[in-house]
């Protein structure tokens, strides 16, 4: 009846997951009680859970990402402290638990932390920047988000019920085959990542279609903000590579569940095929994450320098260049497999060539600042921190792309330091810069500047104190994923790294404080103009937060930097453009289909993990029925009456009049 599931799946003998489970369940129950007591359910259900508004979905993506970043960070704290305590000592995590921690850390940080945040930014920003009212497929957008959330939920359920994979975040066979890892851990991994991967693919298709087919009048390709270009490149990579992940995981699933032989080390299976396939997804995945971050930095450098982005076409070319080349470099993750010098040379050079694209971008950002009026507000601090950190990370990356150098640094702590250097320095700094930058757009008030600066400095210094020792450890010959250590020479560096983690914890606390303080002081931090940073692209033309229909009248773009042009003309003529003729707007109706689908796929995934076949079948049928019911609905859109459109837009225009006066008085514009 319950498959493999019984009481022994609850980790009663292990205090860490048990206490964590207990606390998390307690918090969850408390939140549910609070929501019920306050009567917030209808609001949550109508405004968020069933919402098909791209901004709401973007915010929910970011919320999911932030929560999972904290979960992944907790794993990171455990890894660093455990290793420091496990020098000639057992430490506090036994191998079978420690192995789960580093696997969960990698999986969560990449797939459930960084990915949702990046997708959240794309969801929130792309339609606003393109001057349209929604993405191409609003309901599918909701499905995509909820599937990602479903995967994240499964990963976290594994903490309470059963175990997570102990194989590393990419479960290399034969280790991940049932022969060597018989537990449910790998199965949790497979279903969680498979389900969220489908969600990501849906969002990828959605954004590609949106960028290519839904732009406001006049928004030709070379007038799009660079963020839209990077979102397009990133989503094209999603469309091209996430099916590879789906296929690879499906094959491993067949091996594990039905005893097939794709990757086994018996009966002709080929484990190296897994390594090739998974990195054919895994390397582009890195660029799926970092390209939108590049887009965020481009917007920030340009806005806070008060100048257009330098070499816009160059930036677009470099983005597409990286997008294409990133699919031709996967073998650099296993030069040490012995593929031969010709193959290694090809992939070594193609990997280094990516540095041309990123190098061009770095120089273009520098020249964007040249001749500008650079304002060092918090997003700009993150961006400067990024330039420094990412250049060093790029340097060590190219070192690892040189096969003979990789032969002594592969899988070492040097490698660990390198990819944290680019992923934290590139993606995470980009995400924090972006959160800081667009928070007022999403919520209508700025984040507290002082706490933001404190958070940046803790994160920046903490990062370097944590990861510089790891570079050294790598050169000392320390490999990754060691549960205990018996080399005395490594001790001081592991201790320094823990100090760095302490500083990073202060950084995280500062960020939480920033949020708390900002919510408390939200009235003084209120953004009444809709344009708090003197922005240049169309999202700043809307009020903060934007109305659900984004634009009362679709803007007509007449040049690059659409909103900057509108603003400039207003200042020159000392008046806003004449009030447009308002028309009723048609918006898609909310739909619970995403939530229902994700609910049933979660049940399905859980049932599959525990071999509860009847429940899996029921869940699949229910998901299909849900879709048919959805497909049967008769009303797709509702009409926003002219009066509502007009009143929202008149309020916006009044705020713009005030902004216009302020701009004229300050002579901010040239």
């Amino acid at each position, binding site marked *: 009846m319950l498959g493999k599931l019984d009481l022994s799946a609850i980790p009663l003998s292990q205090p860490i997951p048990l206490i964590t489970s207990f606390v998390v369940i307690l918090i969850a129950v408390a939140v549910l009680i609070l929501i019920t007591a306050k009567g917030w359910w209808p609001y949550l259900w109508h405004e968020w859970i069933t919402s098909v508004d791209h901004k709401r979905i973007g915010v929910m993506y970011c919320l999911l990402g932030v929560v999972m970043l904290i979960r992944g960070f907790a794993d990171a704290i455990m890894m660093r402290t455990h290793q420091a305590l496990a020098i000639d000592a057992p430490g506090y995590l036994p191998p079978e638990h420690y192995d789960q921690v580093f696997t969960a850390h990698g999986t969560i940080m990449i797939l459930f932390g960084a990915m949702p945040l990046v997708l959240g930014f794309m969801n929130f920003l792309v339609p606003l920047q393109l001057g349209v009212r929604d993405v191409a497929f609003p309901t599918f957008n909701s499905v995509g988000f909820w599937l990602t959330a479903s995967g994240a939920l499964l990963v976290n359920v594994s903490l309470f019920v059963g175990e997570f994979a102990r194989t590393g975040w990419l479960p290399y066979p034969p280790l991940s085959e049932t022969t060597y890892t018989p537990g449910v851990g790998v199965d949790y991994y497979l279903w969680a990542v498979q389900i969220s991967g489908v969600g990501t693919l849906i969002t990828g298709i959605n954004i590609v279609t949106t960028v290519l087919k*839904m732009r406001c009048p006049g928004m030709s390709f070379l007038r799009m903000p660079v963020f839209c270009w990077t979102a397009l490149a990133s989503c094209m990579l999603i*469309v091209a590579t996430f099916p590879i992940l789906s296929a690879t995981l499906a094959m491993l699933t067949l091996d594990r569940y039905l005893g097939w032989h794709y990757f086994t080390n*018996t009966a002709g299976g080929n484990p190296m095929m897994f390594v090739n396939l998974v990195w054919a997804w895994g390397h582009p995945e890195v660029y799926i994450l970092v390209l939108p971050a590049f887009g965020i930095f481009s917007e920030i450098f340009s806005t806070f320098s008060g100048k257009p982005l330098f070499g816009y076409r160059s930036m677009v070319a470099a983005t597409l260049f990286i997008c294409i080349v990133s699919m031709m470099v996967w073998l650099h993750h296993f030069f040490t497999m012995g593929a031969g010098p010709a193959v290694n040379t090809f992939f070594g050079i193609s990997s280094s060539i990516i540095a041309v694209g990123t190098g061009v971008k770095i120089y273009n950002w520098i020249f964007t600042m040249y001749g500008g009026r650079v304002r060092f507000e918090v997003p700009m601090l993150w961006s400067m921190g990024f330039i420094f950190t990412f250049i060093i990370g790029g340097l060590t990356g190219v070192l690892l792309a040189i096969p003979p150098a990789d032969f002594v640094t592969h899988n070492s702590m040097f490698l660990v330091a390198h990819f944290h250097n680019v992923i934290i320095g590139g993606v995470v700094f980009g995400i924090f810069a972006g959160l800081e930058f667009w928070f007022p757009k999403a919520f209508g008030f700025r984040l507290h500047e002082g706490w933001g600066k404190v958070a940046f400095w803790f994160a920046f210094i903490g990062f370097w104190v944590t990861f510089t020792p790891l570079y050294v450890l790598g050169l000392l010959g320390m490999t990754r994923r060691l549960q205990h250590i018996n080399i005395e020479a490594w001790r001081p560096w592991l201790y320094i790294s823990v100090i760095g983690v302490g500083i990073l914890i202060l950084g995280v606390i500062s960020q939480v404080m920033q949020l708390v303080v900002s919510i408390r002081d939200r009235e003084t931090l209120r953004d009444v103009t809709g344009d708090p940073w003197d922005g240049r692209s169309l999202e700043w033309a809307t009020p903060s937060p934007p109305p659900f229909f984004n634009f009362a009248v679709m803007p007509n773009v007449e040049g690059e930097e659409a909103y900057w042009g509108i603003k400039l003309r207003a200042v020159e003529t000392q008046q806003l453009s004449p009030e447009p003729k308002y028309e009723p707007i048609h918006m898609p109706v909310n739909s619970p289909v995403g939530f229902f689908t994700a609910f049933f796929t979660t049940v399905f995934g859980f049932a599959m993990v525990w071999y509860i076949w009847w429940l899996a079948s029921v869940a699949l049928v229910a998901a299909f029925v849900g879709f048919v019911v959805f497909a049967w609905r008769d009303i797709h859109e509702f009409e926003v009456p002219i009066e509502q459109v007009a009143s929202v837009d008149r309020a916006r225009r009044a705020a713009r009049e005030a902004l216009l006066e302020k701009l004229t008085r300050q002579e901010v514009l040239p």
Partner: protein
Amino acid sequence: MTYTGLPASVEAIRRVREDPHRLGHRAHGPEEPVAGAGHGETGPARKRIIVGYGFWIYLLSDIVLFSCFFAAFAVLRGATAGGPTISQIVDIPRVAIETTALLLSSYTCMLSFAATNARSRLWTQIFLLITGFLGLVFVLLELQEFIELAARGITPQVSGMLTSFFGLVGLHGLHVTLGGLWLATMLAQVQVKGFRPEIVHRLICFNLFWHALDIVWIGIFTIVYLLGSLT
């Protein structure tokens, strides 16, 4: 052909541009922005274009999915682990019937869409039914093939080659089966709701899906069965 003094390539481009019947660009060349095409000058595309476009992108991703299973088959083709080789398991006559059924179903699928364009509910339904029937024939034949192989002890658990064979062919069979479910849903929808815009959009997507499965099958037929029977 008049001599214009231009280099041949420029001349060729000029002629292509001036050709009013050139493929894909009839309605919206660069000089003549058309509303609803989604080309930047005129704002978002019409719903019909967006839906079709999005579905094309999904199909591309599905082709990538199949490519991985093709790649796995190419890698594991020789890994028979003492079991049967590919030439010992292919049964060309049956596959020929399967292929015929599937190709015919693509043809009837196209006819159903022609009927949809003529807004003939009866003929749309009839041709969709025939399409579904041919798809069912295909799936049943494939199932029969798998069952017969299993009866001979030829299962995916035997070797890497058989794993990749059953994986690739089975994935396609699964797609056809899901396509059949979709088709059944569409039959009901057309019957109940008639040719509303969203129903027509779904019919377009279904057509694209069904034809794509055909193309994938031609790849499987050639690479797995025909080339397999040669060795």
